[in-house]
């Protein structure tokens, strides 16, 4: 990974494209974990990559570019959120305009359980939601990148993940009890 950063810093566009390929899903996971709506998520993603372009020569540890991208995307997401004009209040739960909404085809063939899981993920507190989106990114990030990027001690990722997943399971169990479970 350090080689790709150095090559991109030296003007190698193919190395840059390889970096994008590797980390595009991870950066998207960070901004969507913060419930930025489509246009704002896209803006923050692009700002993040544009910043990396300017910092290629300055990244101290080239092997930590994943962590750098997560940190930058997280900070920029928080900046945009703090201005308050781009996201619905977090008191609103459920699938609001700001939450990623599956396309009509994906919804049509989705099982009830998938939709319930998606809704549960959206309703988690932000830190859990972001952690789970990041861990579920494709390709999976290293725990080192997650730790440095989200500011979590590396030893706490496993236990925090367990707590967040337990919260998600509890939510799903509660929604099972309130649904009549009939077919859609």
């Amino acid at each position, binding site marked *: 990974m350090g080689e790709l950063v150095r090559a991109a810093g030296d003007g190698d566009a193919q190395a840059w494209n390889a970096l994008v390929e590797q980390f595009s*899903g991870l950066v998207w996971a960070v901004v969507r974990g913060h419930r930025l709506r489509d246009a704002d998520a896209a803006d923050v993603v692009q700002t993040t990559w544009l910043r990396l372009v300017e910092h290629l020569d300055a990244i101290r540890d080239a092997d930590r570019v994943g962590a750098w991208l997560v940190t930058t995307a997280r900070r920029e997401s928080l900046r945009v959120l703090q*201005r308050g004009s781009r996201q619905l209040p977090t008191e609103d739960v459920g699938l609001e305009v700001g939450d990623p909404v599956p396309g009509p085809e994906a919804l049509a063939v989705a099982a009830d359980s998938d939709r319930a899981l998606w809704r549960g993920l959206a309703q988690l507190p932000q830190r859990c939601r972001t952690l789970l989106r990041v861990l*579920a990114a494709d390709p999976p990030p290293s725990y080192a990148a997650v730790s440095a990027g989200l500011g979590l001690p590396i030893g706490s990722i496993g236990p925090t993940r367990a707590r967040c997943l337990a919260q998600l399971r509890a939510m799903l169990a509660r929604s099972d009890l309130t649904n009549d479970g009939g077919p859609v």
Partner: protein
Amino acid sequence: MLCSADEEVRTLSDPDEARDDEFIDELRGLTARFDPTPAWVTQAAREAYTWRTIDAELAALTYDSALEDAATSGVRGVATGEVLSFETAEVTVDVEVSPAPRNRRRLVAQLAPAQAAQVEVRHREGTTSATADPLGRFVVDGLPTGPMSLRCRLVSGGELATEWTTL
């Protein structure tokens, strides 16, 4: 089982951990179906490389009033007069961002120490030119929201580019 810093060795000796691993894999599949990274977002990331400037000094974002406001009062609201500061070792660029009609943005900026400069605002729709007067002041109106960077060619001969920021 010892783990190196970057690799996580999954061991099935902990059934809870294995169950959590599977749940994450399930979320990975769900996310791939319901909210994959749009292709055009990835394409924009590739194209970001063309904005690389090798000859300008980077002015880092050192202050954002929106974060100050949030820290002190916790109030959220539509940004009016948000102030951003960018710094190199020698020059500061203070920028006041305010809303403009049709969801655009207006920048009122000041270079310090005061000096004239040719300014190029880089943004989602291309570039917009402006000129800083001898007092270092310039105004740019009608900018689209999204990523923005100011490139300033100082009359003294130096050149700086502000860290990309989301308007």
